[in-house]
């Protein structure tokens, strides 16, 4: 069924270029649904989607954890989470988890643990991630195992134009932490997918189709089928070259080249072709964003582009890197002119500055959720269908605390999660939460994690 929904980006582009694509955040799929809006008219279920919202440097737990627990009205939002008031029905907090295995040593460790279930290359957790003989800083840090978003993308990302979509806000600042701070999405060591942080470029990726502003042949400004044909012929030739090169390569480099060629095939598949199905009339492309410097506007614009990408079924997996692990950005937008990571290790006043930053980040996460709540899908909205894993690498950052991770889940994943729940999971592991999320998304996996390996499901958060 999903094949029939493939969107024609030519159509989308035409809308954008002709200026009719104003910000109508209308759903793409409702016209194709059955009378109840719970499934496609043709019989398939509405697509669920999976996201990761990641920020660096942890959380001041006293501001994050609610005083009350339970479901529905039994629990109330904490101060950090105030902005989620309108979407509390879709919020699931898991507090009290622990990293039980091994000895936790800092940001690089934490980001491997929460996103990839540890690090099979350092499975005994006795050596540091940056222990390579000739590492000047910590730039050997990479995800040796695939991150959760990519595991889910392999399971459900195949039917959409983008197997996964990577976005972000702040470029990483600080010590060279390796690739773990540059990207959420990793498929293996140094095999990572950096986020797009520029709203205009993100728009072009999703809805534009002209490579690099190349002027199309012929007379009009609209890319023609001819341009698409030329692009396709070039990419075919490149794939032929890759086959010739591959014969000269050993296994590891052959795999690297194969990943490159997978990327090219994905691009090729996204080139519109005359046989494409017409897009649903309601998939409206927003106006192209201009140059945006202000961070809140950047965030809000990207949040809306993510929601549009989902409602147009351009992707089912998205990861949003607000800031990297151990990030040292400053936040003048909330009056903090000192570095985030530095503040988390400072005195009491500095700790309050860090908490101010955290609150601001949660406000932006809440904005993403609210936009999704306001984006209809079927009889409900995007939050009914999606599931976001909100996470950071440490809990209380001052001492790199690895208990009580602030796991902030959003969305009901097509009714699989109860929502409106604060579950205290004392003594349980982060890997249990992630394994549960992966199973909810349909990944066939029954145990997960190099560190804290588990086959337990956290059934308390499920509907």
């Amino acid at each position, binding site marked *: 069924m999903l094949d029939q929904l493939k969107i024609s980006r030519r159509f989308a582009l035409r809308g954008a270029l002709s200026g009719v694509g104003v910000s109508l955040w209308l759903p793409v799929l409702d016209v194709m649904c059955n009378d109840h809006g719970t499934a496609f008219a043709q019989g398939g279920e509405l697509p669920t989607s999976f996201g990761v919202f990641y920020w660096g440097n942890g959380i001041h737990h006293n501001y994050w954890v609610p005083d009350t627990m339970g479901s529905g009205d039994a629990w109330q939002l904490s101060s950090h989470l105030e902005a989620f008031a309108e979407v509390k029905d879709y919020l699931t907090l898991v507090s009290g988890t622990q990293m039980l295995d091994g000895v936790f040593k800092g940001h690089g460790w934490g980001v491997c643990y929460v996103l990839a279930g540890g690090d099979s290359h350092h499975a005994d957790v006795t050596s540091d991630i940056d222990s390579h003989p000739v590492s000047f800083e910590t730039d050997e840090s990479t995800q040796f195992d695939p991150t959760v978003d990519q595991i889910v993308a392999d399971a459900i990302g195949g039917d959409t134009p983008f197997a996964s979509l990577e976005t972000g806000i702040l470029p990483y600042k600080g010590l*060279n932490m390796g690739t773990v701070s540059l990207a959420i999405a990793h498929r293996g060591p*140094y095999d990572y997918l950096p986020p797009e942080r520029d709203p205009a470029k993100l728009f072009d990726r999703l809805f534009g189709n002209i*490579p690099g502003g190349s002027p199309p042949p012929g007379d009009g400004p609209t890319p023609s089928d001819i341009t698409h*044909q030329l692009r396709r012929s070039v990419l075919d030739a490149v794939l032929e070259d890759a086959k010739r090169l591959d014969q000269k390569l050993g296994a590891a480099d052959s795999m690297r080249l194969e990943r490159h060629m997978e*990327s090219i095939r994905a691009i090729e598949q996204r080139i519109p072709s005359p046989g494409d199905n017409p897009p649903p009339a309601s998939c409206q492309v927003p106006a192209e964003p201009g140059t945006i410097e202000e961070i809140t506007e950047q965030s809000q614009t990207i949040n809306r582009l993510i929601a549009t990408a989902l409602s147009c079924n351009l992707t089912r997996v998205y990861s949003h890197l607000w800031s990297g692990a151990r990030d*040292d950005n400053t936040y003048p937008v909330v009056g903090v002119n000192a570095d985030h990571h530095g503040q988390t*290790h*400072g005195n009491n006043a*500095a700790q309050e500055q860090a908490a101010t930053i955290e609150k601001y980040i949660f406000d932006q996460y809440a904005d993403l959720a609210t936009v999704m709540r306001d984006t209809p899908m079927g009889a409900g909205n995007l939050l009914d269908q999606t599931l976001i894993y909100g996470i950071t690498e440490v809990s209380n950052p001052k001492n790199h605390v690895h208990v009580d991770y602030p796991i902030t889940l959003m969305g009901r994943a097509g009714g699989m999660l109860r929502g409106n729940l604060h579950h205290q999971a004392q003594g349980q592991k982060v890997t249990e939460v992630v394994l549960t999320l992966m199973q909810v998304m349909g990944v066939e996996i029954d145990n997960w994690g190099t560190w804290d390996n588990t086959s337990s499901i956290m059934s308390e958060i499920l509907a």
Partner: protein
Amino acid sequence: MTRPNIQATVIGASLSLLLSSGCYDGRDVDPEGAPQDVADDGDQDEDPTGDDGVNVGDYDVPLRLLTRSEYRGSLRVLFGDEVDLGLDLDLVPDTVVSGFHSVGAAEVTVGEMAAEKYEAAAWAVANRVFAADSDWSAQMGCQPAATLDDACTTDYIQKLGRLAFRRPLTSEELELWAAIARDATALTDEPAQGMATVVSGILQSPFFLYRVETIDPDNASESGRGRFDGASMATRLAFLLTGATPDEAMLDRAAQGEFDTRQGIQDAARALLDSDEASAHLGEFFVELASVDSVGNIDKDQESFPEFDEALAASMLEETRLWLRERVVAPGTDVRSLFDSNETFVDTRLAELYGLAAPPEPGAGFVPVALPPESGRAGLLGHASFLSRHSSPHSSAPTRRGFFLLSAFLCQVPPPPPPDVDTDVDSGEEDEGPMTTRQRFEQHVTDPSCAGCHNLMDPMGYTLEHFDPIGRYRTDEHGLPVDATAEVFGNTVNGAAELGAWLRDTPMTDACMVRNLYRYSNALKDDLPDIEVIEQVAEQLPGLDYQWRELLVDFVASEAFRSIAPVP
């Protein structure tokens, strides 16, 4: 009488230093000064990121993606300086691994966004060079038929393809690209578009985007090492010395077999070193080694350092680049000026930051200056780029500075801290009354389990304490005098200039520089398997009067660069 064996003296010395300092405790220390797990001996073969590279089975040559700068430099070789590409090409940033872009380029993969950006860049360049309304046939050197089915077209494709792929195109390849040109022209009725389409394809081909280097089976060294074939040597030399793909002259030298001999390699290296491209590029090794290219990536506390902005960070980096080019790697220069040069280049803002009398007028750009002794600055250790990059946003971070100096210039990497230790002693202002940065750090390192390693790292950092987190000179902090005296490897050193003098004179830095050059030029994380050939090169430095260019000529003709040991 030969010089003492560096491995035995320098590297052995560093081992004993690490051990005698009590720095290391709990794991074995590799004989070359690098900490490793006791049980790690056979681990190199199991490295999941290890490439088995080209030439399967015998040799393990890393397959290297072009870095961003190599990509841009290569475009100049392909299309000439006269074509103003005028493009801000948006490629995915390089991945720095083990301190070098090149090492990362041998590890990374090209994801979808990276491939999209390559596609966009290729079309943008191609459409610029072959813009229909331009005199595009000048690029080809002949006027092709309107249908592009002639020798002019195929000759140009062969010429461009050879430059892009660093080898002649096979007849099969030539026919493939020529057919694309013809078809695209037929489709668009526009020969410029036909050429642009071919060029876009060549620029996206893996044969352009990756350096494919192969071993010449007929030219093994006496010890059984595999020597790179001529085209691969042309590639390796051109990228190392000019930062770009080899030009026609280099490929011609390769075709004539000139790189099969030591003399031929050295002649070609000297020719390359005479180029403007080499002058502009040679310093980049030191830029990467010192990690100063990411100086703009360290935000500073805006309350304490409001003057630190992107423009100032850019000035800092430009100072270092200019100075490296003119004072460190220039012909006839002693590369050890890196540590003790008292000359540099400043613009208005840097002159103000450095407190120099008579700063250049705004807009005057960079001017050469001699630094007075009272500036406290000497060589790289006095550059604001280096000092800012190796500071935290709010503190001069002596441990970080010391750790970096040990790692990058002495090739001694202290082991990571023991488990469960809060390593962030660098906590900004504490609540216990005014203290200097050094006092705060010394207070935190009283724990004997920490002191071993910190006593190795911190003293070098303390000698730079006269420089604040943005590289400004200070005599006191919070009204307390700065103490920049410390014992470094048994010598009492006061301040950056004395530390620079010591670094200049210790043979440890010679060997370490060549080890880093080896890793940089071969895109390898690990240099230990080839330590003997590296050491032979390093031993030449005094006899070459420490001239970096002379060292490079020696290095590229050595087995450390022209050959590779077979996979055991």
